[in-house]
């Protein structure tokens, strides 16, 4: 046994104080994006439960790993009874539940949704600090930057791309999708239209803008009229690229996989 531990034990026995293992906190996550960051940074036994969205086949990029962990319903009562050290929530997590947990004396950390790569880096570092793994987080950020630089090397042309989702909605410059798109080497048409968070592009306007590539979302099961527009004959001549998928939703290093996939459509990168 190391001398420092002998002294700690001796002191504890002498003072009669209960020994608190200064181990990493046990956490509950209530938000899809914090779920994924937690899964990527924490030790498995730190995770008490994740939100139900972590298993969602359409929105979660880590749906398979999420099955290994328990699931919470977001109810303050249920979460309180699992006695977490730390609760992670998103900006739009149900306010009533968050307030209740705070008033019960629990530590709740709110994470804003990631809208840029800087946000991703900040959130990774903050998560690392909270979970007691600052070194892991720092390594993750370094790997992220390295791989991002690799992905962005060798890009000379910048084709014009439009993100086009159900009901004709697109993402503007203040969105994660925009940064994924531009990091992959494309220009976002929404920028030409001056859109910030995004907005609706009428079909006619899209055709007039004549993008080089149109990127749609992956269709949901079931039918909706909003998604019918994506199958409109007028869009047929456009090059329709890979769909955006779960990896576009949250700001974690998985966005790099999304960028790599997207680069299959990029003239400079597709052969790599």
């Amino acid at each position, binding site marked *: 046994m190391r001398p420092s531990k002998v002294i700690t034990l001796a002191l504890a026995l002498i003072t009669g104080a209960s020994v608190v293992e200064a181990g990493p906190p046990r956490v509950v996550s209530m938000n899809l994006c914090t779920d994924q960051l937690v899964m990527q940074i924490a030790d498995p036994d730190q995770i008490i439960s994740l939100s139900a969205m972590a298993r969602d086949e359409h929105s979660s990029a880590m749906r398979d790993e999420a099955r290994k962990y328990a699931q919470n319903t977001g109810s303050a009562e249920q979460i309180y009874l699992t006695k977490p050290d730390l609760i992670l929530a998103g900006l739009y997590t149900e306010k009533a539940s968050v307030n209740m947990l705070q008033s019960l004396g629990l530590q709740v950390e709110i994470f804003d949704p990631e809208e840029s790569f800087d946000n991703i880096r900040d959130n990774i570092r903050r998560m690392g600090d909270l979970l007691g793994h600052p070194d892991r987080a720092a390594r993750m950020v370094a790997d992220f930057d390295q791989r991002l630089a690799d992905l962005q090397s060798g890009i000379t042309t910048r084709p014009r791309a439009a993100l086009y989702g159900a009901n004709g909605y697109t993402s503007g410059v203040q969105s994660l999708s925009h940064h994924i798109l531009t990091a992959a080497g494309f220009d976002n048409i929404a920028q030409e239209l001056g859109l910030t968070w995004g907005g*609706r592009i*009428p079909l*006619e*306007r899209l055709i*007039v803008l*004549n993008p080089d590539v149109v990127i749609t979302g992956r269709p*949901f099961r079931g*039918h909706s009229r909003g*998604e019918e527009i994506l199958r409109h*004959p007028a869009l047929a001549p456009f090059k329709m690229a890979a769909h955006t998928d779960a990896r576009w939703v949250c700001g974690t290093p998985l966005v790099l996989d999304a960028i790599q996939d997207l680069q299959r459509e990029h003239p400079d990168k597709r052969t790599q």
Partner: protein
Amino acid sequence: MKLLWPFLIVVLILTFAASILIGQANAPIADSLAALMTGDGPLGRIMQDIRLPRALLGVMVGVSLGLSGAAIQGYLRNPLAEPGIIGISGAASLGAVVSLQTGFAAVFWLALPLSALGSAFLAVLIILALAGPRGGSLTLILAGIAVSALAGALTSLALNLSPNPYATYEIVFWMMGSLADRSMDHVWLALPFCLVGWVMIASLGPALNALSLGEDTAASMGINLTRSRLILIIGVACSVGAVTAVSGAIGFVGLVVPHILRPFVGARPSVLVWASALGGAIMILAADILVRIVLPDGDLKLGVVMALIGAPLFLHLIYKTRGDLQ
């Protein structure tokens, strides 16, 4: 009024042209027309794949609703009757939504309009059965409210049960109607049923005239009432069902157009039916132009404009005919 027909035809042509030429692309008229013919380039695609089907559907919707409204009013001898108010359009929406959400619509090409048609047929049957021989206003409108409410609730339920998160918000489209982002596919889908419906309704001219004097007199004048009733039901179900399946429920056209045109045709039902077909097309095209001018980048529903015009008129008509309410 001899000038009525040339007037209606000229206005229809003008509104059709305006509908084709108005949109976000904002190209000069000559360029747009050239692009319409050739289909070249982005403008050509816009003209042929977006503007043309929209205008054609506008005509089909307007003709169907105008014809059906005039025919139902003529048959029931009630100026308040119209496919939207008496629940036919709502029922057609229900059939369309159910077939789309259950995947039946994908089974074969015509499954969607047939489903809308089927539920519209059922609704017309129920309404005619409840309205009774004289089509008394009170019974008719109450029956219409009941059918509309039921159809609306079931449509909303079907959409909420969908695994698709966008489906929940579609209820507005189905209840208020829209011609936005429709394609030639939708035109071809609805056209056969519309044509069948129009032909059937148009054939009812003599019957509607004779019915002005009551069912007894009409029967004595050689009109087969049972056959006429059936033709009306099928004709209305076909035309209203088909257009509702592709553009949602658009109300009040069948009320407003016959009401406006009736004085100009001497109130003769057989003539009013034709005039309402043209008038309905003009009204829908004009309303569709309006939604594109008022909110060019938005998605204002056609039914909003129609309701803003039609609902006050409906109230006015109720007020005028309140002495006859039974």
